């Protein structure tokens, strides 16, 4: 999946992955996709709730070797 911006939040714990995500997605234009990578398991539920709350769209998410990847399309 192609992303317009890749954000590395690996090794960071709550609330930093979401803080980074918020700052990063603010720099994108509508329709662009942000890819965020995190290793904090707690981020998984929070990230989905945040995406829903902000009206953006979770296009895809996966996990590999403890790294969670979220692809969010800006509304």
């Amino acid at each position, binding site marked *: 999946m192609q992303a317009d911006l890749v954000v590395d939040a690996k090794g960071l714990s709550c609330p930093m992955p979401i803080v980074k995500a918020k700052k990063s997605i603010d720099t994108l234009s509508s329709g662009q996709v942000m890819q965020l990578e995190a290793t904090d398991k707690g981020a998984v*539920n929070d990230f989905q709730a945040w995406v829903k709350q902000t009206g953006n769209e979770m296009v895809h998410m996966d996990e590999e070797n403890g790294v969670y990847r979220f692809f969010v399309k800006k509304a």
Partner: protein
Amino acid sequence: MAVATINSQELHNKINSGESIFILDVRNPSDFNDWKIEAQHLVSVNIPYFDFLEEDDAVYQGLPHDTEIVVICAKGGSAQMVAEQLDEKGYHVSFLELGMLEWSQFYNPVTVYEGENMKLIQLNRLAKGCLSYMVISGGEALVVDANRHVDEYTKLAVSENVQIKHVLDTHLHADHISGGAELAKATGAQYYISSSEMQGATGLDYKPLEQFEALKVGAVEAKVLAIPTPGHTPGSTSVLVNDQFLLSGDTIFVGGLGRPDLGGKAREWAQSLYDTVFTKVANLSDETVVLPTHFADIKEINDNGYVGATLGAIRASNEVMRTENREAFTEMVAGASGATPPNFEEIVGINRGDIHVTPEKATELEIGPNRCAVHHS
């Protein structure tokens, strides 16, 4: 300015002091709805921390200026962030330093009974709804259904100036990791559990509880009777202390009966539960005080601060306890069990001594509420 932190003990003291307190839980709504800090007369609202990242004053509407706000999250990080923002805006605020992670490991000891020859203490692990007991007599103690933070019991034994002689589990727990075997090892006490709960288990040193009709604590004062009460699990055993207090494990709760479905044999175990209720327990008087291993609702904490009720009161308020028709009873009990406790298969494996995990993993497995009671309103 650094924002004040608060730990679970301090938070609990505040909640119990009658002081006005406002909890702002900043976890995401699904986590909040699943499991939160509860107490009577406690105001608790949920605004996820990421709402505070927006520059939107509407988020702050409804937050009181005249009451202390305690901010809570999963592990403390986002609560700190939100607390700092509130502090800047002039709110009177603190945050629970290690969040629900710490709250889940907080125990509150309450004395249920103190007489000349015997003292009975209930340890309430509030966040999990897990209850355990220390029966004290003549400088000795029996611990029933210890949770895994064994320091809580050794510390209490020191402050009560007693030696722990016996440690027992009423059954193989599925919702929390038992501290029974470890506590026994640490104190040189004997560890007991019904052998039918441990069939095929490897590597745990225990005495089969069913072989002991009575355990002696102190001189002769505390009479402890092991009463097999199958139903929740086949080997569930209740403990009757001084003919007065029934430590009922997960068999009988203040608000209902233990769920029989955690072994995949709901109907079969429901039949055992029927026999327990209408033969074994039927012989006990209405005056007997039932002290279970769990509570399902904060309302089960009575005016004396502990979870317990007389058998008479439970019989009067619980329809299932009066349903003498075997078929109808089975239907009610086996049919209404709800979601299983999270990770219960792994937890059972640990409690049988078959699986070993690190303390971090144990904490993770146990997070969340217990789900061992069946609710019947």
